[in-house]
């Protein structure tokens, strides 16, 4: 028998990091919560270039208005003002992300079993540690949900676009984070629906399952961690 693969199809497993087997269970970490030299380095470089070009142009435009003997050309100020404004918003967003990475460690999810099956119930522990010995000053909240969705990628002319369609969204138990806590944690259980579908991963078509956990700590952080699950084509009877 000859085995032939078309169009660079990945083997049907999770392309993102598989879980680590630990004594506690199968550990998933949301890498998007973590520090990344690539992500932050590129972001800072891009913002410096953006502001490095737009700010001097804005300063020149403001000087021309200040030195104008006749009616001021306010229209000429609009574009540099817009670009500088966008750059400053980007900088604030960048600093917010940096502050969050500094204050709190990435979210972790520990599953009782891996991979998952349709119709089976799983015990889960979520936790997220504050860094540097910090503690919460006010009560906060942890809320989780199970989401299943289709993801596709397609080309429209020269553009590459993606689209998603959610087929399952289940609210899961939420919990409180008490004031004075050094970490947020939540134990809960969930079930993959009997009708599934199982996970599927090809280059441009995927069926994804995720646990999404939103952590709200007033004056500290509001962030959602996403943990990708893998559901085998097996159904519990």
């Amino acid at each position: 028998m000859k085995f032939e693969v078309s169009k660079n199809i990945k083997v049907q497993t999770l392309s993102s990091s598989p879980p680590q087997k630990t004594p506690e269970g199968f550990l998933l970490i949301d890498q998007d919560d973590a520090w990344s030299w690539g992500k932050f380095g590129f972001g800072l470089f891009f913002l410096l270039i953006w502001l490095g070009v737009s700010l001097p142009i804005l300063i020149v435009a403001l000087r021309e208005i200040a030195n104008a003997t006749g009616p001021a050309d306010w229209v000429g100020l609009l574009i540099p003002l817009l670009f500088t404004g966008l750059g400053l918003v980007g900088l604030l967003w960048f600093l917010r992300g940096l502050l969050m990475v500094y204050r709190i460690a990435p979210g972790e999810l520990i599953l009782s079993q891996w991979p998952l099956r349709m119709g089976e119930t799983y015990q889960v522990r979520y936790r997220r540690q504050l860094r540097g010995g910090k503690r919460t000053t006010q009560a906060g909240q942890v809320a989780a949900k199970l989401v299943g969705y289709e993801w596709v990628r397609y080309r429209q002319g020269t553009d590459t676009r993606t689209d998603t369609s959610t087929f399952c969204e289940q609210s899961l138990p939420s919990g409180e984070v008490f004031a004075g806590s050094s970490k947020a944690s939540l134990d809960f259980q969930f079930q993959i629906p009997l009708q599934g579908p199982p996970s599927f991963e090809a280059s441009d078509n995927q069926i994804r399952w995720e646990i999404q956990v939103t952590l709200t700590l007033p004056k500290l952080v509001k962030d959602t961690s996403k943990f990708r699950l893998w559901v085998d084509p097996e159904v519990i009877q």
Partner: protein
Amino acid sequence: MIDVTLLQSEVTVGETLSGRMTWTASSQKQPKEIKISMGWRTEGRGEVDRQTVEEIRLGEDRFSANGAVYSDFNFPIPRSGPVSYDGSLIRIIWEVRIVVDMPGFFSRDDKETYGFRVLPQPILSDRSRSDGY
């Protein structure tokens, strides 16, 4: 003319799809090769992904004087799937595909596809799987 008989219209992952392919000549020409393959493809909003999972090639030594060819096939479905799926943006379709490669630059190859469904495997609840904590 191509004809395929599948013993199952639905098969579970890990099981085997069985069937018989029959080809009868509609002209004097004998094919160079007949390819029987099984695989899946996607349909829908996204770019097409496809994979050929199993394949049989029948050479000229299999063709009889009266121009008829038949071949039984048994294709195992991978335990990893995927299963057939019909969603909003994606459909996953399994099919057996027959291609009869006719000789000559201007000759058209004969092609037919036959769809079937792949289902997830039912498992009895396994209480021996230990909890991590």
